[in-house]
């Protein structure tokens, strides 16, 4: 075997190992969601009898569809708010000279390291007193807050890369300030903002700690919380197929986003975490 060929074989083996390790649990939950209730507990990896009934089950009950609505609504609103607030802060951090810049970055770092469960008690207490318990704003407020640090880091890293001189150049060439901003700066800033939007949406979509603590009914319960408390047909039967189907449905949109924007997400995450 030539050196080149050996190298190719080695890398192929590495790709195969990575693929098996990361994909097997995903395939498993997909396969489980396609098993009939009678065969759900047979312990085989690949279903013997295939069915889509688990999917029609979860979409025919209010529990899952309400949770899906809550997840999408709460996730999108939190993300828009977080990215909006973070954009203005990140612009100032990347472009303006002002005292206290380090302080704001340290506050953000502190919030990023904060154990979220420590807030659950006080928020639970406060939300019940002021009527935010089990409501959309009750989740949007903590989600937005905990998404801010990463948004600020990622966005300021992106904003620092933008050649702002172009804005002035456009104005010299006769563009109004607004035209210069809209035609020059907005297109340059859009990739960073889109990336941040996706990363933040994933954070909100993923949350479990707040969802399980600050909601109790379909009014605001998100999918992760709903999955963890799916009722079985009786107290003693676990609805494996339904859980698996719900798990697949919440995974698909995020997975598509991650795969479509993988290059940008990787650069965004690492820029935010390492370069600051």
């Amino acid at each position, binding site marked *: 075997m030539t050196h080149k060929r050996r190298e190719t074989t080695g890398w192929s083996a*590495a790709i195969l190992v990575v693929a098996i390790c990361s994909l097997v649990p995903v395939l498993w939950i997909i396969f489980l969601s396609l098993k009939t209730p009678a065969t759900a507990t047979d312990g085989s990896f690949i279903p013997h009898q295939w069915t889509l009934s688990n999917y029609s089950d979860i979409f025919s009950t209010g529990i899952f569809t309400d949770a899906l609505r809550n997840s999408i609504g709460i996730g999108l609103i939190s993300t828009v708010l977080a990215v909006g607030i973070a954009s203005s802060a990140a612009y100032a951090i990347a472009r*303006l000279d002002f005292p206290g810049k380090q302080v704001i970055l340290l506050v953000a770092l502190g919030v990023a390291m904060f154990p979220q*469960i420590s807030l659950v008690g006080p928020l639970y207490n406060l939300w019940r007193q002021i009527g935010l318990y089990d409501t959309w704003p009750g989740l949007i407020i903590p989600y937005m807050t905990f998404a801010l640090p990463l948004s600020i880091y990622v966005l300021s890293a992106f904003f620092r890369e933008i050649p702002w001189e172009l804005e002035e150049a456009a104005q010299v060439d006769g563009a109004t300030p607004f035209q210069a901003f809209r035609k020059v700066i907005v297109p340059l800033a859009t990739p960073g903002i889109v990336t941040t939007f996706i990363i933040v949406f994933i954070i909100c979509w993923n949350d479990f700690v707040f969802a399980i603590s600050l909601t109790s009914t379909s009014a605001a319960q998100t999918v992760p919380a709903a999955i963890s408390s799916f009722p079985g047909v009786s107290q003693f039967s676990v609805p494996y197929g339904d859980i698996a189907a719900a798990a697949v449905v919440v995974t698909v949109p995020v997975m598509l986003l991650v795969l479509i924007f993988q290059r940008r997400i990787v650069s965004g995450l690492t820029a935010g975490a*390492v370069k600051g």
Partner: protein
Amino acid sequence: MSTVTAPPTTRARGITRKQHLSDRARAERRLAFWLVAPAAVVMLAVTAYPIIDAVILSLQRADLRFPNATKFIGLANYGHVLSAPVWWQDVFHTVIITVISVSIQLVLGMALALVMHRIIFGRGIVRAIALVPYGIVAVVAAESWQLAWSLQSGWIPKLLGLSGDPLSHTFGTYVAIIVTEVWKNTPFMALLLLAGLALVPDELQEAAKVDGATTWERFTKITLPLMKPAILVAVLFRTLDAFRIFDTIYIFNQGAQGTESISMLNYNTLLDRLNLGLGSAVSVLLFLLVALIAIFFIKVLGAGGAAPGTEAT
């Protein structure tokens, strides 16, 4: 934003505090404060206020089942928590899970990062596949692994030829929980390390190669030392996250089988037993532990050099 077109000169770092600030610089500062204020206010209000509230609650007998018996009792709640064996057991569980899972993540994450860095073909495919666990909702990952390990539904007991349920005893449950954590978080670890790897100059590797250094020598003598800041930051992030472990344990068994973590204890005390006073004491102690870990990494190990923000310009 569109109106801000301060020329680059006013942003030059040459301006010292002593110099008289021009009107323009003052206007820039004012604008910066207004732009930063919303983020600062939100972050402080939603974290500082509740944590102060937690401190106050932790000094009271506050049990939602007996709302009229609330009164100030000083540090008694802390005394209760710190003298309870369950607290120390849960600290122990949390440390075990954190140390083992982060160590494995570091080793596997480094391997994955090296593969992604050095691979000569299919880099995009490897990166896409490796990102899959990152993109999965944490609760879904936990459900998938829990259903895979459970004797009733899973394929793993069958594969390993186990007759008993691995999730019915402590050791099996720990293995399953740690596997879940490692699977879910290794990609993120690898991404952070990959960014560090990119900073190691290729010329240095080549020079050492010419001088006859083996692959292992080059890795331990060149790559690792140069990557130290990136490694410390990655390990700090993952450690803080692992120390707060909640989702996976909740989905597996809500802390049964001797796997209760501090976060789980916190949740159970607050929301199952509705004891706000004791629960808040646990919250404050967890907060202090996390702060201690962060300070240890930044001050003692020097992770601060590359921590976000500190080198921001």
